[in-house]
């Protein structure tokens, strides 16, 4: 590895994966170049309406990350860009890139959108999968980052209208392709995926029948920003469908389609679409045709149950043979086999759950980067190196290394960020250049002197609102010293002008009346700061989105409303106070609880990042469940026990890791940045973060004669006996879902299907003639594990389905073990006398999770695993800041998934550990001690446990009051709304400030 390492990372692909990697890296002190081949970031998630299993609005939960990425001072978003070649090695790469011309100057474009609205061209809108039209001058979606338009040269007719209309003079038709280099230390690949082309499955009629659509198209139908504004309509005639069929595994688990793997997410995706469609359109009936229902993720089976019981979605287990159109009605007839009978059913619409394919042009991409692909052309990785490509210094996350859902992607994205930064950890903070600001003017005690800057936004505001009139009005408001109008308030020259006006008029408050603070407040706050004022002395009025754009045909009332909004902003502005970022001291070390694979991985990764870490394990030995794993399903044939030894050696020899064996955690006090922990041996440790990696355990069955007969084993027992050559079975019956997917434990244990297949193959390897029968409910060999399911079936392993009404029975006849089961295909009761019965037992949460949960003030899920901050986008974070989660403690998962999560938890932890001092937003709550009487009403409602009741002596009396933990408080203000005594205020949104706005709104002018 080169000695001159570079503290910058190139992230390729700006979907949710690339954004998460970028944010983690940037927060941990590295410079990030995020490139995307599209004109804006956001990836596929930006096209989703809702996300399973919470049915969260995708845009709602993604927007903060989108905006955060766009405005982060350590992230440079470079759109329309692809890699041409790479030289150098891990630690120091030189990357040659090429950027397609946007034909609109990014510096000048304000994103106002007049060009797009006036463009006469109607081109296919790829964002809506071709279901709507857009101009040749366009933006991918309304919340695009960067919010810059682009001219599609292929579609542009060169009429020149956009150039005439653009008041910012941003149109540059003659922009050319641009080549440039970047010097980075490591690279993260998250190029995403493409979708299977369903027209290749001619039997389903996609492309021929209008009412056969793909699942991604249907997602746009459901979206409020989609082609039908959220109304589910049939493409053929706009009718609202009454019956919709969902066909699973279209281009997945299909050797004819060349994609034998399972796409992992479509089962959940289809259920979600069916549920949301039924919500949108009352009376709609959905019917899902599937092979195995693969709801293997955390709380996914509950979702499946709700889909059946609450939403009455019909599920039929079969592969649909054919879809036929009824020409008169454009309805569709589905032909399928159920219970051995050929059936036909008519639907108004058919949704094809199309599978994931590798990204387009993946072979050239891999060649350019010098990385290996697997046999399906996804990125090749190993079980113990899930984030590493074959090229050192180049890491991977997201669907590019295998189909996966959003939470797994986000955990991997964080994990890849940890990997990418650990090899350049010595360069942390070196490529970051903090912005220099002039000294801040002290305005305390001054009367408010307000400057109001009102934006025409080209013609976006000025075309409707009488801006000069609003300016004249603003001048009449109390404390307004200066008011003016600007063509674009956000343009470079106006920014300069605002700074000059601050000095010239000795202003101490700035108001901009223009667009939305969600996108522009950071810019104007920065301008305010550059003008020598505290950035929190800035306020905005949104007279574009709330006046000119929504009252386009009512100029008088739009103008009147703009005046009102300015008056409200002035009223609040008068009460603004300077606020200062809070600084938190950080102990730059970590505590990892649990010394299994996840915990050891987390400790090693944290050490690689340069931080000291305490690893606490209650047992004598490290290794946890990995000690019982002897083989894995993998092309590369990794030996788990050899890997385990190596990992343990590394942990023991790393002088940054302080190992505490046979030790438990007695107590943990403190908060993000400064925790103090006491261990069972009375050792006290100070640390800035906690990673919970306490693992899980295999269920010891009480059913099927386990413990009564030594020939009844669990999969883990079997694996050990096979590895040690203790047994060589001739006949085995495996029973799946023992202790999982039952009433008292409704979740799927995720790993048992592949484990059963793995052990079945092992038996076959030792004894090809062995008779193996697997009794199952659904085979959930998701992703590339599907290959081994097929291999097992090819080698003669029999898979027989059972359902809850017909569970297998294990009895003894004399000395023989007898398994009885109804074979649904043969339709008869069969009896088997195997040599061994092997139970695929559930993975259980640790029984003492509750204790640790209380200690750390973190929640458990209903299944008693730890519950993360957000199931979709914060899979390894807890709502309690500074505490992170990985491995089986989160939910059952495989080795590679545990490693990804462990690395992810470290990446998230490093965003806190990266500096001795951490800056926090000041817009959090503040206790007004003289008003607080210690009633404690606020304490329980606080969602972040940030408030504590305390007592202190004041003038010889005990005074009760509440203390706010600044590291935990997020400024939601639930306390403020609960307090009967005005004893707590959220800075920037105090009762007085909101009240002033209300008062101003009610003033009649």
């Amino acid at each position, binding site marked *: 590895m080169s000695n001159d390492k570079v503290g910058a990372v190139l992230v390729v692909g700006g979907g949710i994966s690339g954004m998460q990697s970028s944010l983690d890296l940037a927060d941990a002190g590295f410079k990030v170049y995020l490139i995307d081949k599209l004109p804006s970031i956001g990836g596929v998630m930006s096209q989703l*309406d809702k996300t399973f299993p919470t*049915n*969260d*609005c*995708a*845009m*709602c*939960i993604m*927007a*903060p990350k989108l905006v955060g990425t766009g405005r982060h001072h350590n992230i440079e978003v470079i759109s329309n860009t692809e890699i041409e070649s790479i030289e150098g090695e891990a630690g120091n790469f030189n990357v040659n890139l090429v950027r397609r011309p946007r034909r609109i100057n990014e510096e000048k474009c304000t994103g106002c*959108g007049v060009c797009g609205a006036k463009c006469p061209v109607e081109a296919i809108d790829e964002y809506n999968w071709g279901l709507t039209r857009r101009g040749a001058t366009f933006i991918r979606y*309304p*919340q695009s980052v960067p919010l810059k338009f682009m001219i599609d040269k292929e579609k542009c007719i060169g009429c020149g209208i956009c150039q005439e209309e653009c008041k910012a003079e941003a149109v540059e038709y003659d922009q050319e392709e641009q080549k440039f280099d970047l010097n980075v230390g490591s690279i993260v690949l998250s190029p995403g995926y493409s979708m299977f082309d369903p027209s290749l499955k001619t039997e389903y009629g996609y492309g021929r029948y209008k009412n056969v659509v793909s699942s991604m198209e249907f997602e746009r139908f459901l979206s*409020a*920003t989609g082609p039908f*504004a*959220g109304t589910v309509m049939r493409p053929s005639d706009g009718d609202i469908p009454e019956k919709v069929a969902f066909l699973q595994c279209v281009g997945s688990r299909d050797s004819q389609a060349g994609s034998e793997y399972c796409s992992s997410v479509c089962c959940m995706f289809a259920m979600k679409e069916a549920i949301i469609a039924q919500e949108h359109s009352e009376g709609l009936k959905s019917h899902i045709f599937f092979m195995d229902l693969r709801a293997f993720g955390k709380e996914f089976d509950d979702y499946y149950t709700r889909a059946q019981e609450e939403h009455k979605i019909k599920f039929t287990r079969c592969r649909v043979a054919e879809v036929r159109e009824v020409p008169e009605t454009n309805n569709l007839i589905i032909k399928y086999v159920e219970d051995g009978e050929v059936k036909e059913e008519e639907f108004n619409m058919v949704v094809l759950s199309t599978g994931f394919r590798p990204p387009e042009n993946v072979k050239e991409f891999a060649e350019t980067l010098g990385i290996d692909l697997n046999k399906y052309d996804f990125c090749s990785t190993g079980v113990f190196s899930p984030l590493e490509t074959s090229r050192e210094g180049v890491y991977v996350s997201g669907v590019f290394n295998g189909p996966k859902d959003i939470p797994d992607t986000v955990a991997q994205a964080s994990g890849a960020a940890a990997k990418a930064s650990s090899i350049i950890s010595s360069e942390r903070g070196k490529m970051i250049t903090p912005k220099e600001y002039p000294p801040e003017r002290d305005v305390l005690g001054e009367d408010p002197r307000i400057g109001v800057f009102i934006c025409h936004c080209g013609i976006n505001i000025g075309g409707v609102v009488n801006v000069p009139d609003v300016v004249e009005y603003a001048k009449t408001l109390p404390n307004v010293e200066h008011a003016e109008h600007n063509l674009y308030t956000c343009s470079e020259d106006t920014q300069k002008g605002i700074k000059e006006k601050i000095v010239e008029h000795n202003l101490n408050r700035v108001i901009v009346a223009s667009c*939305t*603070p*969600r996108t522009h407040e950071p810019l104007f706050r920065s301008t305010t700061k550059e003008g020598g004022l505290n950035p929190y002395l800035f306020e905005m009025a*949104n007279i*574009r*989105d*709330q006046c000119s*754009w*929504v*009252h*386009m*045909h*009512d100029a008088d*009332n*739009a103008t*009147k*409303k703009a005046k*009102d*909004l300015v008056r*409200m902003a002035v009223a609040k502005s008068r009460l603004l106070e300077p606020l200062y970022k809070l600084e938190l001291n950080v102990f730059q070390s970590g505590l990892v609880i649990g010394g299994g694979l996840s915990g050891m991985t987390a400790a090693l990764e944290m050490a690689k990042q340069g931080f000291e870490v305490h690893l606490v394990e209650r047992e004598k030995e490290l290794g946890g469940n990995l000690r019982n794993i002897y083989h894995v399903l993998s092309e590369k044939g990794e030996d788990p026990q050899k890997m385990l030894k190596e990992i343990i050696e590394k942990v023991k020899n790393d002088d940054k890791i302080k190992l505490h064996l046979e030790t438990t955690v007695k107590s943990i006090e403190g908060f993000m940045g400064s925790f103090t922990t006491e261990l069972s041996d009375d050792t006290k440790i100070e640390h800035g973060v906690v990673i919970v990696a306490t693992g899980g355990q295999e269920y010891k069955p009480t059913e099927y004669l386990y413990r009564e007969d030594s020939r009844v084993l669990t999969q883990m027992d079997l694996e050990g006996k096979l590895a040690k050559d203790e047994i060589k079975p001739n006949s085995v019956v495996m029973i799946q879902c023992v202790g999982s997917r039952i009433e008292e434990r409704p979740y799927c244990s995720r790993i048992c299907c592949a484990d059963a297949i793995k052990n079945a193959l092992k038996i076959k390897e030792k004894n090809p003639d062995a008779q193996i029968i697997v009794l199952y409910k659904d085979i959930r060999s998701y992703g590339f594990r599907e290959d081994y399911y097929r291999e097992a079936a090819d080698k003669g392993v029999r898979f027989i389905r059972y359902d809850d009404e017909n569970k297998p029975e294990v009895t003894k006849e004399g000395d023989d073990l007898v398994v009885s089961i109804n074979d649904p295909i043969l339709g008869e009761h069969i009896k088997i006398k195997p040599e061994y019965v092997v139970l695929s037992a559930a993975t259980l949460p640790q029984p003492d999770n509750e204790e640790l949960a209380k200690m750390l003030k973190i929640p458990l899920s209903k299944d008693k695993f730890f519950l993360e901050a957000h199931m979709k986008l914060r899979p390894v974070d807890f*709502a309690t800041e500074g505490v992170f989660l990985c491995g089986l403690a989160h939910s059952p998962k495989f080795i590679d998934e545990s490693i990804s999560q462990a690395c992810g938890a470290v990446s998230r932890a490093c965003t806190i550990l990266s500096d001795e001092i951490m800056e926090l937003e000041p*817009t959090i709550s503040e206790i007004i001690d003289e008003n607080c009487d210690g009633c404690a009403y606020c304490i329980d409602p606080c*969602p*972040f446990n940030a408030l504590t009741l305390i007592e202190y002596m004041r003038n010889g009396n005990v005074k009760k009051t509440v203390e706010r933990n600044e590291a935990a408080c*997020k400024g*939601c*203000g*639930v306390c*403020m*709304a*609960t*307090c009967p005594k005005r004893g707590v205020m*959220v800075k920037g*949104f105090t*009762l007085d400030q*909101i*009240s002033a*706005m*209300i*008062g101003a*709104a*009610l003033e*009649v002018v």
Partner: protein
Amino acid sequence: MEEGAAEGVTQEEEFEPLILAICCNWCSYTGADLAGTSRLQYPHNIRIIRVMCSGMVHPNLVIDALSKGADGVLMCGCHPGDCHYLEGNLKAEKRADALFLMLEDLGIEPERYRLEWVSASEGQRFAELMKDFTDTIKSLGPSPYKMY
């Protein structure tokens, strides 16, 4: 006849209510922005106040607004489960129950206060809500506390 004429006059000077919409930053205010970028037209009677969370709005603020002449107050938060602060919106929902009792005491029609969920992608819904709530308030007539 005379009565009919009087009615005609009131119709010409149609009551234009003054309505406050308090919107949370993360979902509803974003939904309002989307209504804007999508150029969805809705009544001009609404003045939006941005707060970080619907859960931060003290019931006294709502009572204050309604007793000082606001003809209606519409509180908009994230759909349950979407709250940026986990459950602030649910707190707002609980407070709404208490608010209705207070409104009853003040003799203010309960229809003048409404709590609604609007997501970041529901620009259309936001605009429709604004129309719907404005219509409701128009049919109620001016607030009994209107000072002018």
